[in-house]
């Protein structure tokens, strides 16, 4: 065809397809000038669609951001629990907490990847929207000029070029929107799954479906039995020292907070020891 005819392959084939598509649309109208008006309407619709697309991607990105914060909080909590457990001499619990933290961290990394991908999509669509806006504005001007200056017969060549040019842009933008929509849908499905896991208290499959709070429950239990031990020790000391026999009126055992290190160690294996 022209100088670049030597360049066969993907690039030319794609451009040929785009042109064929535009020509087919042009053939639909007897007066090519009608094509311009029709195309302009389509362009405005597409612009709206791109803007909606940008907004959708942004919403999706914000949702992922929110989840990243939640997952980070979970990770921090597990870290705290690991420290508490270790301080209480429960290395097994600490290990469990850290294992979970590791899988939560990998989830976080996955979310970060998603976030970056959505951010990239958002930038691309925003740029596409700006390009399209500039072209649509230019098209409106050229359309009126062509209509005012040329007869239908004369206008054909000019219309052909401007129409093919804008159709190509619209096809490109249309594909970009489709891609962004697909990506957003994928992300939303994944985000929904994570939300459900969060809501159910089980963080993820990687955690073996165990409620994330069982470590906390164990720590609480240790804390509670520590209090019981303290209370018992206090009572024994009082009894041994001939303290008043009336013990009633004491605070409920669960709420009692020992104000000193228990001097007596209960023999239960589960009791939180100071060793």
């Amino acid at each position: 065809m022209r100088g670049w005819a030597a360049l066969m392959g993907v690039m030319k084939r794609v451009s040929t397809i785009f042109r064929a598509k535009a020509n087919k649309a042009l053939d639909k109208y007897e007066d090519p000038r009608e094509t311009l008006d029709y195309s302009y309407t389509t362009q405005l619709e597409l612009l709206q669609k791109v803007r909606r697309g940008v907004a959708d991607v942004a919403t999706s990105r914000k949702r992922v951001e929110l989840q990243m914060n939640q997952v980070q909080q979970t990770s921090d909590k597990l870290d705290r629990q690991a420290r508490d457990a270790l301080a209480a001499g429960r290395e097994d619990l600490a290990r469990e907490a850290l294992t979970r933290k590791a899988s939560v961290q990998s989830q976080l990394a996955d979310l970060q990847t998603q976030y970056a991908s959505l951010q990239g999509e958002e930038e691309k669509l925003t740029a596409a929207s700006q390009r399209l806006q500039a072209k649509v504005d230019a098209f409106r001007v050229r359309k009126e000029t062509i209509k005012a200056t040329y007869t239908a017969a004369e206008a054909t060549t000019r219309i052909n070029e401007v129409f093919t040019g804008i159709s190509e842009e619209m096809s490109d933008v249309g594909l970009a929107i489709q891609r962004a929509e697909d990506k957003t849908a994928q992300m939303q499905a994944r985000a929904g799954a994570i939300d459900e896991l969060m809501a159910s208290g089980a963080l993820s499959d990687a955690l073996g479906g165990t409620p994330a709070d069982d470590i906390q429950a164990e720590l609480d239990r240790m804390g509670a039995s520590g209090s019981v031990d303290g209370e018992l020790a206090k009572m024994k000391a009082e009894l041994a020292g001939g303290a008043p026999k009336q013990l009633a009126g004491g605070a409920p055992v669960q709420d009692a907070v020992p104000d000193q290190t228990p001097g007596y160690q209960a023999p239960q294996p589960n009791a939180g020891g100071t060793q």
Partner: protein
Amino acid sequence: MIIRIMGEGQLRLPDGAAEKLNELDVDLEAAVDKHDEDAFHVALHKLLERARELGETLPHDAIEPSDLILPGEGATIEEVHDLLADGGLIPG
């Protein structure tokens, strides 16, 4: 010559630039035909880099058909296949 990088915009290339892109395009098409995703990404990236080096960005308000259309960075072989399959992917 005007080329479009899909999702990115159009570039105007000087005469003769096509020759320089041509050899890279051959690699690209070979990768597509063999369905070699890794080779495809490498070839596509090289091709786009070269095109950007050689070309000059067209103003946003230019309305001109492209002589050549390149898949955008990050495109997959599948997407290119779809593009080539009678424009099945192309809306409108």
